[in-house]
């Protein structure tokens, strides 16, 4: 068992009080909701997608500092990216950004809930907009096996 207290550094606390991209997009192209059954953390992500690019992304919901900080970072990473690049975002990208690589199993779910929601939103969007059902299924699988 290693100590975990150092995860609560300045950036996390700041994000938890002032999350980035917090809010709703009224005329979103896709939205997705999910929650963590164990703790009740709950996240919605809305996206505007133009020309296969995420032109805007916002989230709302309720979660712990870890969840809010990770969701903030995720939305910042995502904004402006092509859908292909969004597909490539991995857990490591978020965890390393915030120095959370060694988070214990139960908190990993707090950290990655938003990534799960993002991948599910992407899957939902693609399912409506492309024919390659195989690629969509793979994405669905990816989202559900994130943790």
């Amino acid at each position, binding site marked *: 068992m290693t100590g975990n207290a150092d995860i609560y550094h300045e950036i996390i606390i700041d994000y938890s009080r002032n999350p980035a991209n917090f809010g709703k997009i009224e005329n979103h192209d896709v939205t997705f909701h999910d929650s963590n059954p164990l703790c009740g953390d709950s996240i919605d992500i809305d996206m505007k997608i133009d020309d296969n690019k995420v032109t805007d992304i916002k989230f709302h919901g309720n*979660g712990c500092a870890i969840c809010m900080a990770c969701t903030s970072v995720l939305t910042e990473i995502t904004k402006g990216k092509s859908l292909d690049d969004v597909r490539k975002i991995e857990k490591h990208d978020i965890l390393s950004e915030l120095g959370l690589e060694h988070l214990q199993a139960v908190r990993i779910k707090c950290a990655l809930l938003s990534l799960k929601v993002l991948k599910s939103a992407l899957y939902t969007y693609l399912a409506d907009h492309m024919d390659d059902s195989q690629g969509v299924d793979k994405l669905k699988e990816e989202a559900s096996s994130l943790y």
Partner: protein
Amino acid sequence: MQSTQSSFENLRNDFPILKRTVRDNKPLVYLDNASTTQKPNQVIDSITDFYRNHNANIHRAVYALAEEATEAYEATRDKIAKFVNIKNRQEIIFVRGTTEAINLVAYAWGRPHIKEGDIIVTTEYEHHSNIVPWQLLTQEKHAKLEYIGMGDNGELILDDLDKYLATGKVKLVTFSLMSNVLGTITDAKKIIEKCKAADVLTLIDGAQAVPHMTVDIESLGCDFFAFSGHKMLGPTGIGVLWVRKSVLETMVPFHGGGDMIREVHKYETTWNDLPYKFEAGTPNIADVVGFGAAIDYLTKIGMDNVRDHEIELTKYAIEKLSAVKGIHIYGTKDLSKRGGVISFNFADVHPHDVAQIVDEEGIAVRSGHHCAQVLMERLNVAATSRASFYIYNTKKEVDLLVNSLNKVAKVFKL
């Protein structure tokens, strides 16, 4: 045993896990007893002894071990009967825990008895295990699930019950004798009185009450009663469903299989006597035996002493916690109406973060919705932190909790 703080301190020696350290060599302060309790040597040893000396399947074989195993298993049924005052041992069914007990009722009593338009009444402060089975049942039967509301003092609003009873459609009223989030002790006598007058059956979820106070099922007068062993010093995987015999006789089998049958033929089967009709398959024999040891242990202390000890701790904890700036405690502060479960929030810090930071100090508290999301909605919060006590907890541990909260304040710059 005398109910003094020092005699309770001595009990700690019976619990090996309390000598453990966690994280950075911090002594363990275990304050998640509403979730599950720790086990004394007496319980652990009884399980070990069973496997080392008496293990066999029960009820069916004539050899020596089977006889001993059956005796040990059935002895726990008698201990339970005595512990919560049940007159007829045939009414006691062993299950995995409170959750299975309530689901058993929903299937084996609910499915043959609940019809379209009927109403089942539960409350806003129930555990999911006393809500979801009734949602499943009422959806299947096109019946309705209604809720007795909760006032801001953490007590149920019994006028709601009157309103539902007045429809004449209520078939069952089900409620927890003690809330696992607020600690509120339900006024069971009044609810049951109203229900009896209206000829309505009552189910009590005793998961939080039985471990922490004297419970007398006979004098409560309910029809179903459920509780879990692991929340009262017993092993995981064992619990009790009690059903009044006249009601039990109207229930259909739940699980089919060995031990619950009288005669199996290819196309028809007859059922065993009570309670075996409802205990299909090899039961959790060793843990039934261990549960018996837990009851012996609690009996020796005396449940009134357990309650006194927890009132004293809870009073102390509420005082100390209230003194911390930014702490908000939910529920009533009337100690006669609540058990040793304290839910709180700390300024704008999410309970997960509170729990994680105090965990660094060795303190185990729960954070989240506590399997009571309907209550969370009612309180208008996503989650709370919760400290819950048992016989081995001390005032010093309360102090350590309060100290660790100061660390939370520092990290979050409160």
